[in-house]
């Protein structure tokens, strides 16, 4: 079947970006042969900014084959049919219920003329034929995720999506398995257990597939799980390597090639020696966020979660390698460098956030950058070749720290904001939920800006109260969260200049932003709100351009793709959930401000503003 390729609207400013990309027919015929996207990414714009070469892989410019579209984690689409001039005309062109009423984090994939959607638990996979009006489901794959995962894991039953490679759709199930499904037939190709739900391990993250290896990390730091990243062979599902986040250098895969930039991160077996006794075995540092990859440097990048057991006083020491940015060789898993963002965490600031890889001028020099918008409230900018921290500036109110010393890599903390058992500490900003959580930002090489979904929420860490688990009474600190300084608005889309270390423009939102961001070559930025609005703004000045009210809160990540009809579309999930969003669920009470680890105090109004849902929306002309 032959599909028409519509001629794209090419503005003068976007010529550099779109030159040589008018090859959609070819892309459709055989996406693997289309190298235009590679050339596109490699060629810097007149502003000198580019995504690293090769990061879009072999996909066509209208496809979305991995979680953030490219290995750079940019969430940038080179499509520009939908642009600043016409986005106001967007309409719903297709929608579909997934049949699951839970938090729909993550994003769909589009490969050729097929869209793939993974649901929260029970983790169904839908294949949707985009050539048929309204989208027709080709097949549904049910992985048979164990219902025990819900009871044992208890907290979050979200899924952050799939990745495509080797003719397979590959994703993770809540009960800690990775499954590979034939993209055409919907038949299971292989399945590998990557964790044990009996000890509280689950998997919610989206895998990244690099050089024939499926990279998968675990969740469950709250239950004393020890974090790891595992590489599976894309053909067989067999484990190739496994890198633990705590323990000996042999376990962490730290060898002779390891060169941390800062002395603070150097030394033998720090994954053991920065813990007392056997505490590293419960050490957390789970890998439940996003992964990036630079094909030329041959390095993967990811951050680890908070250290196991939250109480800092119970685990004296730096607690390496929790809350750490790792650079590793994808072939062997061996660490090349590491940087621990927060030593001896006392706030649950896990740093599993996306690491956006960009080549751009920085202080007069062309640099290979890694931009990490942190839960801590800082945007960190690294030289990704060696782990040198080039800049760290706050993008939301921060009281726990004053600054980060770029010479030593050390954070200048405010000691009285450290939490201690039995000590009341007030006015900690950001709260444990962070200045942002897992919801990923987007970067546009056209503007050079990072679009960050941010939260302005602070917390008090209060006295001890009786609590109860597994038949055992215990004492827990009460954490109460509340809107941070300002006018009470708890969310903000921040357009951040990583070179200057300051915002260019922003939009305040009532509720914390729990959706991911999409940036496009049409200079439109898309995002959603927890009360269900899906919005488009101007990438250059944050001016609102369009909005649509979906049926439930948006906590998913929008994507752009080109349909079989040659037109550009935007897709996003609507279905509130996740840490804060779950407070909208009827079973979660808000009469106790300490509910959901204290988050209920931050969004007590969310029940009035949205209800549970589970929808895919597609917008176009």
């Amino acid at each position, binding site marked *: 079947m032959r599909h028409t390729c519509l001629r794209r609207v090419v503005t003068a400013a976007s010529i550099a970006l779109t030159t040589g990309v008018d090859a959609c027919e070819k892309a459709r015929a055989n996406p693997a042969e289309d190298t235009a996207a590679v050339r596109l990414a490699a060629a810097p714009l007149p502003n000198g900014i580019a995504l690293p070469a090769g990061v879009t892989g072999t996909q066509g410019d209208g496809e979305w084959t991995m979680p953030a579209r490219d290995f750079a984690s940019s969430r940038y689409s080179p499509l520009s049919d939908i642009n600043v001039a016409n986005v106001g005309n967007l309409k719903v062109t297709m929608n579909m219920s997934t049949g699951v009423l839970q938090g729909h984090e993550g994003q769909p994939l589009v490969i050729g003329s097929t869209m793939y959607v993974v649901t929260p638990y029970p983790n169904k996979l839908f294949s949707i034929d985009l050539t048929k009006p309204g989208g027709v489901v080709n097949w549904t794959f049910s992985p048979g995720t164990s219902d025990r995962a819900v009871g044992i894991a208890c907290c979050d039953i979200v899924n952050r999506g799939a990745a495509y490679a080797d003719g397979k759709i590959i994703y993770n199930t809540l009960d800690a398995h990775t499954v590979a499904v034939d993209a055409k037939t919907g038949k299971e190709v292989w399945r590998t257990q990557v964790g044990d739900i009996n000890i509280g391990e689950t998997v919610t993250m989206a895998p990244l597939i690099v050089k024939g290896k499926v990279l998968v990390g675990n969740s469950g730091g709250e239950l004393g799980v020890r974090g790891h990243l595992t590489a599976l062979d894309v053909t067989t599902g067999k484990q190739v390597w496994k890198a633990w986040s705590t323990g000996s250098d042999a376990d962490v895969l730290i060898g002779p090639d390891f060169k941390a930039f800062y002395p603070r991160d150097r030394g033998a077996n720090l994954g053991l020696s920065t813990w007392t006794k056997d505490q590293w075995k419960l050490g957390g540092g789970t890998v439940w966020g996003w992964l990036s990859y630079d094909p030329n440097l041959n390095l993967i990048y990811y951050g680890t979660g908070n250290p196991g057991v939250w109480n800092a006083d119970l685990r004296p020491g730096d607690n390496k390698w929790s809350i750490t940015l790792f650079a590793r060789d994808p072939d062997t898993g061996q660490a090349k460098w590491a940087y621990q963002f927060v030593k001896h965490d006392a706030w649950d600031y896990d740093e599993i956030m996306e690491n956006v890889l960009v080549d751009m001028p920085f202080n007069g020099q062309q640099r290979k950058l890694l931009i990490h918008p942190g839960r801590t409230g800082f945007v960190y900018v690294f030289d990704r070749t060696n782990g040198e921290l080039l800049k760290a500036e706050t993008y939301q109110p921060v009281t726990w720290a004053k600054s980060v010393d770029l010479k030593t890599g050390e954070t200048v903390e405010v000691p009285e904001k450290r939490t201690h058992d039995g000590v009341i500490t007030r006015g900690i900003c950001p709260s444990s939920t962070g200045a942002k959580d897992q919801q990923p930002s987007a970067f546009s090489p056209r503007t050079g800006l990072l679009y960050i979904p941010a939260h302005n929420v602070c917390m008090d860490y209060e006295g001890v109260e009786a609590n109860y688990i*597994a038949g055992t009474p215990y004492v827990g600190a009460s954490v109460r969260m509340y809107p941070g300084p300002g006018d009470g608005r708890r969310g903000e889309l921040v357009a951040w200049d990583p070179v200057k270390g300051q915002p260019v423009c922003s939009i305040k939102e009532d509720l914390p932003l729990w959706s991911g961001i999409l940036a496009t070559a049409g200079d439109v930025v898309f995002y959603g709100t927890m009360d269900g609005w899906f919005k488009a703004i101007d990438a250059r000045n944050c001016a609102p351009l369009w909005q649509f009210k979906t049926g439930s809160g948006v906590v998913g990540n929008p994507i752009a793709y080109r349909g079989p009809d040659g037109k550009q579309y935007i897709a996003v999930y609507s279905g509130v959930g996740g840490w804060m969003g779950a407070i909208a669920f009827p079973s979660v009470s808000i009469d106790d401000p300490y509910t959901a*680890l204290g988050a209920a105090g931050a969004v007590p109004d969310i029940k009035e503003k949205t209800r549970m849902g589970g929808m895919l929306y597609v917008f176009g002309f």
Partner: protein
Amino acid sequence: MSSDSEGHTAVRVWHENMALCLPLLVFGVMAMSPASRSEQPSLRVCADPNNLPFSDSAENGFENRIATLIARGRGQRLEYTWWPARRGFIRNTLRAGRCDIVMGVPSSYELTLPSTPYYRSTYVFVTRTDRHLAVRSFDDTVLRHLRIGIHMMGDDYANSPAALSLQRRRLGAQIIGYMIYGDYSKPHPPSALINAVTRGDVDVAVAWGPLAGYFAKQSRVPLTLANVSPAIDLPFTPFVFDIALGVRRGDTARRAMLDSELVRHRVDIERILRDFGVPLLNARAR
């Protein structure tokens, strides 16, 4: 819907005073209508299927025995919703309306409306008797040289009270943590802490009394239990807790019913608790 997330419900029917057991295991909370002349609604209990000595799916825990006592006395069917007792337990069971009673909660537990407490127990020091360690207080100097096992709660900045008292005395480095959740594929995972004392992995454990009492009775080597003294480590760390039944907040009629049932069965309840080795404080007829 075979992979739905709902809890498993077992229904046990009491015919008048005759103990005719009819255990049925079904998925989901379904309205079962077994051949019963009684039109009484069921006594619906939320419980962990794998947490002796408190409860298990074979109904061998002391909370199961007490629930049976109450149901039998009232001629009600007893119906369980099984769910692992960890974060989300109250939300997924009691608050989701799948069941109405949690058989054990601290009397100040804010997630539920607690009944009048029906027992008071204490944290205990657990040691191998052959070690002759005689630990009774966190101020005992012998602790400075011991490996001390405690349960780790994991999230919510949650702690065994022992963790607070040990840290306050700068004994934090002596602590070896055992996750309260443990390995759920094994029977009653919190017992790993007591097994650690038996095996000598730790010198002393500080454990909640009902759990320690039950597993100490079954230990292959004699264990010594000593109540943590004093009961409150000043200024505010409690080691003694009153335990009550919990119902949904606002469910005052059911609480009143349960309060009177607890009075009615108090002798039998105390006997059950003693049979299970629960260390009881301020108990009647002691």
